[in-house]
């Protein structure tokens, strides 16, 4: 039992971080915190993918004399792309928050809903 948990520790950690991000994103009414939750969630997925590419005792996938085992380079390459996508999403989300702040004068989702209700 403990052995199984220990062997899968990175995956369990990734799952935990994912849930934290998920929870933050859905329950916090502060828009910036929502964006933070989004980032935490993405990071968890990256950790998960990275852990799946790890080979015990392997070194970085650069061919050098004397090294025999390497970690799987594909997940790292995928994450590199994922990080770029995540960065652009975060930048865009924050720019929307700035715009919303200009319109409503607040970054609180509940407050925005209230102000919207008053308009209609």
């Amino acid at each position: 039992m403990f052995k199984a948990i220990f062997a899968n520790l990175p995956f369990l950690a990734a799952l935990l971080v994912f849930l934290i991000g998920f929870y933050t994103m859905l329950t916090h009414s502060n828009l910036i915190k929502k964006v933070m939750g989004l980032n935490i969630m993405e990071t968890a997925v990256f950790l998960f993918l990275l852990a799946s590419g790890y080979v015990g005792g392997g070194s970085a996938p650069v061919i050098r004399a004397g090294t025999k085992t390497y970690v799987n380079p594909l997940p790292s390459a995928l994450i590199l792309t994922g990080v770029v996508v995540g960065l652009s999403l975060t930048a865009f989300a924050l720019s929307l928050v700035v715009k919303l702040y200009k319109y409503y004068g607040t970054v609180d989702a509940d407050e925005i809903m209230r102000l919207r209700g008053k308009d209609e």
Partner: protein
Amino acid sequence: MNHLPILIILLYLGSALLIPLLAGRFSSRWLAVAAAALALILSGLSAWHVAEGGTYSYFFGSHSAPFGVEFAVDWVTVLLHLTINFIGLAILVYCNKEIDFAIQSWFYTLFLLLMVALNGLVMAYDLFAIFLFTELGTLTACALVAVKPKALCVEAAFKYLILSTLGSGLILLGISLIYMATGNLNLGALGATLPSAYTIYPWNIRIALSLFIVGFGIKSALFPLHIWLPDAHSASLTPTSAIHSSLVVKIYIIAAARIIFQAFGDSLISVLPLPQVLLLLATFGIFAGSLLAMLQTDIKRMLAYSTVAQISYIFLGIGLMTKTGVMGGLLHVINHGIMKSLLFLAAGTIIAKTGSRKIEDLSGMGYRMPLTMTVFSIGALSMVGIPGFSGYVSKLYLAFGAMEAGKPLFVVIILLSSLLNAFYYLPIVVRAFFSPGRHNFTWDGLSWQEAVPMLALAAVTIYFGLLPGVLVNLAKMAAAGWLN
């Protein structure tokens, strides 16, 4: 090997970059229209190639699978490329009055980048390529909603962005679970290895599949996950609403269906309770979408909720897991795309001229704006599924698919929901032509840029309704390619 598939994408990508650079010298809109027209010609050529030489796979830089990135050019790809580029062209020709603010050239850049995502997503044959095109689609689609300088649009875009990113996170987690179990990302290679991997890692694959369904479900507004759609589709600019409702939501279904049929395959689908889940969600969506649409007083909101119902028809077709059902789903992707863009363009024209978004203000509109209201009625009748319009053909094949799957209950559901559609579409048509209305707006006629796209879309709706033979045959070949 011909390079047409990649040329379509490069054409849009190049034009998207060129438009802001040439903004001062050429009309951004006509450059975008030229790019879409050229892409339509290229997809026509690509269709001709497939008709002559059969379906083929395109490999980037000639690196063969499973090492290179693969594009599948099958009948589904060809049909959807034609649909996407045709509707895109019609919408771009229509884009005129509303987009007169400072960021004009950037609007077209975003639009063309969205076209890159749509064209790429229908042929991506690699889980990671699917993920990337999905993200590109999400980002550009949200940005297009946020383009309109209005608080409601920015808010809708933020809600859409948060929920779609949640969806992307789930999809990426699903991809990593599949990669852990098989060490492959190419759909063809997965099709060969997943059944044996399932015996070793059943939970990895089950969880991955449910993550894909939820992830793509959010992006394509499958019923309980549709909450972002009404705001995003109704608040934005008319061209944005039209492309979102007619194409963007559906392309994610195509991507999900490609993963289901080509990576998971028959042997795994028969083990997992996937069809039951899809059919249940689709049934809920069909009724809930229609009932919510009935409650709306805003014409664009009503059209948006109607999209939720129509999306569920496509999920129903895929959930039936028979050739005719999938074929009906594909036909509905195409037919609904054409008629929904027609409806949004017509509704947008009326809103722009009268300044009112209320459904009740459409009374008597048939006399004031006869052409616009006639094409709106063609779209509405097709949406209800009156014989002679294209909506009837796709619903007919969905019903055939339900019979083929031995589930006659779904024929009843399709009939009942058509009745519900009639409840909210027909009164608009009847009141527009047969009841008086008070309108005090000056009517200066339609410009040809507004009239031609609507007439073209209406003509295609009627053509596919009266002579569906060619389209039905192509869809049959497309479905046969997916379900061996």
